[in-house]
């Protein structure tokens, strides 16, 4: 049941992505509502898939890498729907929806070995949830960074094409970038702390210096520097956009660390 639902979700996210991409490149706005509806429908299926899984498992499905990625995608789409409905910013769908879709796909093709990780400690879901919420913040910042660089390029090269028309103003993208990091950073901090605590309770040590932990720390330090750099030395606008794109690469490497760690629980 949950499997069917998640497949339908993926198909809908894919269609939504395509519609949003066409919307992005066409001058008319008529596709925006349709694409949003498809994304919304996908989100409904996604929610039911999560519910079905929760009922099956008897606990919140956020213990495995796959589940964590699914949660990430779900939150991302939730954020997008919120922003799109509140601010009419449909264009974000052309960037966030493909990211959600790719997360679901990557979760499926990642070498997870045995399908599920062993939950070492019951409260490990807190760590995963917090970390994933932090990741959602960085993902939105990453997307804002990409959009910023695209709009910057359009303005610099004086190409007043559809992309220029559809993309939001630069300072909005810059502040979206900043706010997303500001929101994601505390979650990541708490995620790392709870992860470390779970590790201590499970293995007796706070740190074991595996690739996941190292990349998580690198990510934390990086985003801390980005936030600090904005107020001290003016790492904003184009520079901030570049930095958040680099930062998100660190996030992805953390995930790779999780996958490579493979058999262990998400935390450690």
């Amino acid at each position, binding site marked *: 049941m949950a499997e069917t639902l998640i497949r339908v979700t993926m198909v809908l996210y894919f269609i939504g992505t395509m519609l949003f991409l066409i919307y992005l490149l066409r001058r008319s706005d008529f596709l925006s509502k349709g694409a949003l509806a498809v994304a919304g429908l996908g989100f409904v299926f996604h929610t039911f898939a999560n519910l079905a899984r929760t009922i099956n498992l008897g606990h919140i499905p956020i213990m495995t890498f796959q589940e964590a990625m699914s949660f990430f995608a779900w939150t991302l789409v939730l954020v997008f729907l919120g922003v799109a409905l509140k601010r009419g910013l449909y264009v974000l769908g052309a960037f966030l929806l493909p990211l959600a879709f790719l997360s679901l796909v990557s979760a499926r093709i990642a070498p997870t070995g045995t399908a599920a990780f062993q939950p070492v400690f019951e409260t490990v879901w807190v760590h995963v949830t917090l970390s994933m919420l932090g990741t959602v913040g960085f993902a939105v910042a990453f997307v804002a960074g990409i959009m910023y660089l695209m709009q910057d390029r359009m303005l610099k090269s004086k190409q*007043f094409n559809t992309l220029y028309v559809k993309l939001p103003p630069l300072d909005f993208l810059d502040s979206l970038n900043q706010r997303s990091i500001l929101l994601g950073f505390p979650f990541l901090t708490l995620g790392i702390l709870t992860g470390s605590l779970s590790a201590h309770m499970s293995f007796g040590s706070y740190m074991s210096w595996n690739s996941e932990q190292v990349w998580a720390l690198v990510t934390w330090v990086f985003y801390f520097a980005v936030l600090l750099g904005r107020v001290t030395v003016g790492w*904003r606008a*184009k520079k901030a956009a570049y930095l958040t794109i680099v930062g998100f690469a660190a996030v992805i490497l953390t995930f790779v660390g999780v996958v490579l760690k493979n058999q262990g629980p998400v935390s450690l």
Partner: protein
Amino acid sequence: MNIIVVGLSHHTAPVELRERLAVPESRMGEALTRLVSYSSVKEGMFLSTCNRVEVYAVVSNWEVGLTQVQDFLVSTHFSLTVDELFPHVYRYVDDATIRHLFRVSSSLDSMVLGEPQVLGQVKDAFELTLAHRTSGVILNKFVKKAISVGKAVRTQTRIAEYAVSVSYAGVELAKKIFSSLKDQTVLLVGAGEMGKLAARHLVNSGVKQIMVTTRNTHRALNLAEQFNGTVIPFEDFRSALPKADIVICATGAPYYVISTDDIQAAIRQRMNRPMFLIDISVPRNIDPAGKDVDNAFVFDIDDLKTHVGQNQEERRKEADKAEDLVKDEVDVMLSWIRGLEATPTIVALRQRAEEIKRAEVSKVLSRLEHISPKDQEAIEGLASAIVNKLLHGSLVTLKSEAQSKNGFAFIEAARRFFDLAEPDRTEESTSTIQEFQSLKTDRVGPGESSLPHQGLLENVKSQVNEHES
């Protein structure tokens, strides 16, 4: 006699070339005098705006005239060569020239259809021409007509409604950099018309603050009062640069008022907060290399043109209507000019004299039925002799003066003295003057007197008309 135009515009030449041809107002007198010193050029006008540089001239021979006017254009700037200029230049003769200026003044040839500035610029160019006395009967009539056509097109079609002018493109661009203009500060450098217009649009869009700086402090104070802004001394406006989110540069300076270093320093002080700089001046006032500074967005007039190009298509329909209007007016103008040729005037004059003579002779002969055919012949001969003797001097003068600088004035005078005009023409020319006067009053405000001089005959005529009514 032909009316010609040699010019280049945003359609044909890049801003780099146009700005080299621009002549500052202070040197316009010299340029105009040089223009009419060419052998073939009888009357001349220099129209130089941000988007075009055009020379209108009345010449005795169009082929020679085109070459000479082109020579004149090349020599306005020491570094120009004919080969460089040639591919960008358009040349029109007679009806094409008339059509062109009518289209220009109607904004049909503008970057933005229906934009209001160009009409004022044509008026300014005309005033300079009058002030330096390089125009004559034909150019005066022609340009005045162009101005009234421009006005008519704006009132009779809806293109003015669409007049989202180039300056407004600045607001639209600003909105792609700043989500809300309400928190932004604008710095207006210089008092150029287009710059003021752009600033006006931004103020109307609700910018937080506006700073004004011009070389002339008095002017800056005036502007600041208009926009409810503050004055920055021109000497150290660069220190205010970092405070400005939007900079509009529209001075008449022939050099870069804002350099790349200025922009770089400002961005650094702004801690990389983006800055939007609009350069509405020709020649440009912001170093084009400033475009490469990160977080600085520099747009010149050509960029704004690219921006407004997008929604111009839908305005084409109204433009077609305007084109029809222009076409009708071209025909009217053309027939007036044709009437000014010496030969048709002489023919018309002879005809008129012949008519009068014949009428008077037959009147007399009908009363003197008893006289012999020989005497009749003698009377007819007498009438012919008087008419011919009377006309002879005038015709000789007309023929010789027609070739001179004031030839057309002579012909025009002759047509009026002998009442050779078409019945509706005098009426129309008077209304053109009145229209022009009202146009002028629109712009400079009431109380301002009319033109310095606009052709003695026409002045007298309009006074007579006023008297009669």
